């Protein structure tokens, strides 16, 4: 399995080193707590950037620089915020083609036993969104939706 980024490796390694599920759960909360409101201002929390089908609200943006996709995201709930932070950091800095190489196994390495199926499904949906951004070269979540992708 390829390594998308050093951030990804860091997260994966950290989670692997924690052998207590409760601690892994708390680790994710800690990541979520580090994401501050200012990191993702209200002006970005628009319907345009809102992912549907999540238990809590999730916003995602894709900033493309030098053909590389840089994701940022936010949620109103801390645990989801933690997962969003892990996902966006892990899979940012890749080209559209590189994003297509990312598979569910990559996500599975991050989403250890501490997560409910519903959250796992949410993470997979996030990955799908990243890959779609990769395919279309950017845009907004709403843009993907209205393009029917």
């Amino acid at each position, binding site marked *: 399995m390829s390594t998308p980024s050093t951030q990804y490796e860091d997260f994966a390694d950290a989670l692997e080193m924690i052998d207590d599920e*409760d601690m892994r*759960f*708390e680790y994710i*909360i800690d990541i979520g707590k580090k994401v501050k409101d200012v990191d993702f201002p209200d002006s970005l929390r628009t319907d345009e950037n809102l992912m549907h089908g999540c238990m809590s609200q999730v916003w995602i943006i894709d900033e493309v620089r030098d053909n590389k996709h840089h994701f940022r995201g936010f949620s109103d*709930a801390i*645990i989801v915020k933690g997962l969003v932070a892990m996902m966006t950091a892990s899979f940012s800095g890749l080209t559209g083609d590189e994003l297509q190489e990312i598979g569910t196994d990559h996500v599975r390495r991050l989403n250890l036993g501490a997560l409910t199926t519903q959250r796992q499904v949410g993470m997979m949906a996030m990955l799908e969104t990243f890959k779609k951004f990769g395919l279309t070269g950017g845009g907004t979540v709403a843009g993907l939706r209205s393009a029917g992708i």
Partner: protein
Amino acid sequence: MNKVVSIESAIGGNSMAAFDVEQARADFPILSQMVYGKSLVFLDSGASAQKPQVVIDAVRECYETYYSNVHRGAHFLSQRCTDEYEKVRAEIAEFINAPSENNVVITSSVTESINLVAQTWGRKFLKAGDEIIVSEMEHHANIVPWQMLETEIGVKVRATPIDDNGEFLLDSFKELLGPKTKLVAITEVSNVLGTIVPVREVIRLAHEQGALVLLDGAQGIVHQGVDVQDLDCDFYGFTGHKLYGPSGVGVLYGKADVLNSMPPYQGGGDMIEKVSFHGTTFKQPPHRFEAGTPPIAQVIGLGAAIRYVKQLGMENIAAHEQGLLAYATEKMNAVDGVRLVGQAREKAAIISFLIDGAHPFDVAAVLDRQGVATRVGHHCAEPLMDRLGVVGTVRASFGLYNNAADVDRLVAAILKAKELLL
């Protein structure tokens, strides 16, 4: 030691003698499950209750020793199974004090019970401009079927308000009531706030206006039982799985003349008198409303559930739950930053709450990791969430098998949530 005394008086006291919660807990096999390595604290009975061994065994025994389709057979098993099945109908009638088992229609859930009334009574007797009153704290099951009649027929659904404590406002209800009101469809107990609605008054007032009353008893029957004749409601619906019975079975009670006046709901076997391509006639209630093979083993399981709660005593269960409610309310109020949503004077053992500064989903997730199962979200009552101005709540709902230790675990988990999330 102040706290300990209040535990005793809340949970113990008089009811202790009549009701031994530890003994009751032993009847529920699932309660010994471990969740994330912690023993399970199940505080989600409002969504669906767990099943005592007698219910599980009744279903199993049916399948293993006498299962057969009912009503249509003359052979031994079919006869035996029909007898057991119809016996439960009589037991349900007795349990809710219906005049006869013919007032008891078997459905698949209270949702179906309510839809049945909307689609048969509603479509036959309502016309554009007629009004149906529901409350602001209804479950979607008691809103959407009426909204569908709004679209279809042009009736108007009006919501009678509650106050910020979740108290039903009788005066406002009186104002809404009028000659256009044809039906009042009200929950007995709010599944979110625990509010016990003054349904006796509601029914009296509605009847004065000539309106019928449907009670959504999904939560009510579980916490306090019901006497449909004493209440004088026209319809009463409940669902088996919240009453410690199997999933897949519900009940609709109706007054005889009302049921008799209603056309059938679904068409199929068992509900007909005579079928031909020249004209088909239907059976009398309750069979008129029971098309096809009914939930046979589920009805039998529901019978076992009713016998189980009757043996424990509905008053004992109610007293025990009130004790838990008082104890939990006191302990949770003592935690800084915890806000109880729903503070009606009369409540069933359902507590919705929020932790200031934390998202309810996060709170429920942390609780879950501590082995404490609660529910989070809108609880199928979005209009109520809008009314209260919240995205959702965390809800701890108690069953007969919960004990003071469950409350303590809940409170400990709340403290942990505060520690982790704030």
